[in-house]
């Protein structure tokens, strides 16, 4: 087995196709009737980042999984440290100017530590879960994984960056699932959040509560755990609406804005509508590459970052959308395959975690353009303009290729 050359061609080809597609759309995003110089030149910088990311990905590909595992703790500590100093010295940018997401030194924006944290949290969580012989069976067993994700999550939410927070939660659940935690326990962990959402409809919440009781009785956790779970659900279900209703409308709006400053309901409502109009007006084949009127005439917000998929929908139509979604789906299937065939649990968990992280990004970002998801300012992997994320994505590809190479049997010799 030649571990120096890439062997999982489908994986790397899919990633290359997605990157090329993405850069092409970033170029189109700059083609507007009143050009914004920063956006016009975005595709060149993105191309530069892409080349740099390929190199970085290759370096990581050359590093053995064991080396990465050994470095995990230090990388994790480093990202925590960066998140802390970002919180203190960070600055905002673009549409999320009030979010302190950028590490800035001497007025120069270095990068977004949250992107690094996404990787290191996957690594650290994989390490913690891989160290266990058995999958966690009770809530008490979960304190360590919860701590690994919870620390950086709080730091991210303090920025505040709801989008990345959602990604962390996605990673957390995905890795628990991959490590063998039963779905009933996952449902129990998720139950307070479900209660919080369903609390605004008494009937739905009542039904959910009955299901929860059944789950608790069936799963039979420790008494204390069970009581805590039920109480947490009751608290969410009863207190949350009461508190919410006591708030004046402007306070409720403020709370929503606090959770995510880019989500000012009025402004974002307008933007989501314009995004839907752009996508809907694309039809089967779209208005033609670079020719989308919604984009050209600046009706689309953040067309080179958060709403880049609206450009795909408008200019390349349903066909273009389907191709992009198919590429993503094939990439994720490939990642699941890599995770399934990894020759150790750490590699398997890392592969699955990296894929899960992308998946949450795609689901939330693409869903947002059609108003299926709240606007959280979460980028689309390989598409959205941004250096840190491109770099992080290709680092992940590098790692996946390595895990794939080290996996049971040569990936390319097996049928997909």
């Amino acid at each position, binding site marked *: 087995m030649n571990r120096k050359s890439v062997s999982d061609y489908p994986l790397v080809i899919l990633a290359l196709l997605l990157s090329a597609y993405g850069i092409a759309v970033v170029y189109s995003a700059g083609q507007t009737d*009143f050009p914004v110089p920063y956006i016009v030149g975005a595709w060149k910088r993105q191309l530069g980042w892409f080349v740099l990311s390929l190199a970085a990905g290759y370096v990581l590909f050359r590093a053995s999984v064991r080396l990465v595992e050994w470095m995990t703790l230090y990388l994790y500590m480093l990202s925590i440290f960066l998140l802390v100093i970002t919180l203190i010295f960070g600055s905002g940018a673009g549409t999320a100017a009030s979010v302190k997401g950028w590490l800035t030194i001497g007025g120069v924006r270095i990068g977004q530590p949250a992107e690094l944290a996404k990787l290191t949290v996957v690594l650290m969580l994989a390490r913690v879960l891989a160290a266990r012989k058995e999958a966690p069976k009770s809530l008490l067993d979960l304190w360590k994984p919860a701590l690994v994700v919870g620390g950086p999550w709080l730091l991210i939410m303090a920025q505040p960056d709801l989008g990345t927070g959602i990604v962390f939660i996605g990673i957390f659940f995905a890795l628990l699932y991959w*490590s063998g935690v039963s779905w009933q326990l996952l449902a129990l962990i998720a139950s307070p959040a479900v209660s919080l959402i369903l609390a605004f409809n008494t009937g739905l919440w009542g039904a959910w509560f009955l299901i929860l009781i059944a789950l608790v009785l069936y799963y039979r956790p420790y008494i204390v755990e069970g009581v805590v779970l039920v109480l947490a659900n009751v608290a969410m279900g009863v207190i949350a609406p009461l508190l919410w209703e006591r708030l004046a409308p402007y306070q409720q709006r403020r709370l929503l804005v606090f959770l995510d400053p880019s989500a000012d309901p009025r402004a974002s409502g307008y933007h989501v509508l314009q995004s839907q*109009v*752009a996508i809907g007006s694309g039809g089967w084949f779209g208005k033609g590459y670079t020719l989308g009127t919604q984009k050209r005439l600046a009706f689309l917000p953040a067309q080179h970052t958060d709403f880049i998929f609206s450009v795909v929908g408008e200019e390349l139509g349903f066909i273009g959308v*389907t191709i992009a979604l198919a590429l993503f789906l094939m990439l994720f299937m490939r990642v699941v395959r890599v995770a399934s065939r990894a020759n150790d649990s750490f590699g398997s968990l890392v592969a699955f975690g990296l894929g899960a992280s992308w*998946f949450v990004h795609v*689901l939330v970002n693409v*869903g947002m353009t059609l108003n299926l998801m709240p606007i959280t300012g979460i980028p689309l992997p390989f598409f959205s303009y941004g250096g840190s994320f491109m770099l992080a994505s290709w680092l992940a590809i590098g790692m996946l290729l390595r895990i794939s190479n080290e996996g049971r049997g040569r990936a390319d010799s097996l049928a997909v």
Partner: protein
Amino acid sequence: MSFHPNEVQRRGRTASFLLVGAFTFLASAFFRTQILEHAAYNLQSETNRLREVPLPAPRAIIYDRHGAVIAENLPGYSVSILSRSSDSLRVALTGLAGVITLSPEQMEAAVRRFKQAPNRPTVILADASFDVVSVLEEHRVDFPGLIIQAAPKRYYPDKEAVASFVGYTGEITESELNQRQNRGYKSGQEIGKAGLERQYEEQLRGKEGTHFVEVDARGRVVGEAGGRRDIAPESPDPLYTNIDLDLQRFAATLFGDTLQGGVMAVDPKTGEVLAIHSAPSFDPNRFIGGVSTSYYSQLRDDPRRPLYNKVIQGLYPPGSTFKLATAIMGLEAGIVGLDDHMPQPCTGGYFFGNRYFRCWDKRGHGDVNLRQAIEKSCDVYFYQLGLRIGINKMLAGGVTLKMRDKSGIDLPNEKQPLWPYAAEYFNKRYGPGGWSNGVLLSLAIGQGENSQTVANMARFYTALATDGSVVRPEIVKRQTERTRLFQLTTDQMDGLKAAMAGVVSSRGTAASAQIQGVVIAGKTGTAQSGVFRNGVELNHAWFTGYAPADDPKIVVAVMLEQVPFHGSVAALIASKMIEHYLKRPTIQGAQLEGD
């Protein structure tokens, strides 16, 4: 973790199922939006990017009876701007004010227009000069939503001479907009405000066209909208009037700068209005594109009231021109004959009750018959005739002779004349017993509770000029409408006509108004105005008559407001108009054009 290959494979399969499910969900959401709901979103995207810029249609040209132009359209420019909000409009206006002259009122008006129709380009200057347009073209880049377009501009070549009947146009007001909600009017459009422009608005207004431009999210004009063709404006058919522009101009010159009052000339057989002028007049061209505050207040504060149409809105006691009405009532009722005398001869006045009613001529007219009383306008004779008719017959007669009706001329805002509908009017006004038959004496000579418009007196005389039926005056050709007012015998009719011809003879009160070769018939009138100047009460001097006496072709009613002289001067003006109309060479439209 439990890392048995079988378990991992199982979890991998579940994860794959979830992935396929999630992506199928996303793809179906896109299918719904892009394919099933495509039409609606496509329309919305078109609406987003296209703005309709109205192309103003020229109003109909108004011609006189010979094809001379009364109102036309000159090429002009309008300046408007596309804005997304009133705030961005204000910013743009402030910027524009740094380049061209914009008054705060103009800026406020623009903001008001924007609020009425935010999706239409907001008109800033309805009539911009060429200089303003060239300055704006230079700064075009600074104002992305700016639209400068050719806009036909109303023009009245004869200015003051035609203002009385043609009126003018102006920007539609909010209340006019509300009244005409369903008739396709839009904020910023021109609408007829007075005169024919208002009366025939529906016929005169053209159909606005549409030009499509592409705009971006901030309302900046990006360019022409490819694929969407302009809808051309439609210009309506011209409006032909009965006005004789040559006579109209002549009437205006007769009043000059000093006289005030009104004149109306009408063909007694058809009701065609040949001329209608109120003096002093105003320049309607200065109202086009928005009248300046200074000009408007100058007109408004002028004591001679140029904006007030003295032909159809001014109410004046008709004075002795009404005596023909009194005579008709007497003749029709058989109370008096053309050669009958009254018990008391005129000695310069008449005692009724304990009051002395003077005749206008202190020297007295002696013992006269009805013919002579008309020629000399003897008040004492008519006092007695009025008493003989009696209050009820007098008031009823006035109603029958349409002294309470509008003339029905096709102009807006005509006032209804004042004439008591019955004796009850006096009971209500003064209380029963609070008045006496003395009112009869005043009414009989056209004074008292009697105020007429020049237009209505002109109409009344169309009956005298013909066979006793009036014709509705018409500026624009309509169905002729004749109404019989009274029925006299041929002898009586001829007698009255002879008496009116006698008025404009060496025997009558309008002796100086005679002209060579044409016999004019009519009646002078001198009514007290109640206005004093230098201690002397001013008169309203009237003359209403027709010519030629044997085959009337024109009825002229002249009223000079607040003048220090008598109806004979009004008769002079009328005779000049008659002379001009009947004696000039035949007019061809083509010859008039160059005037």
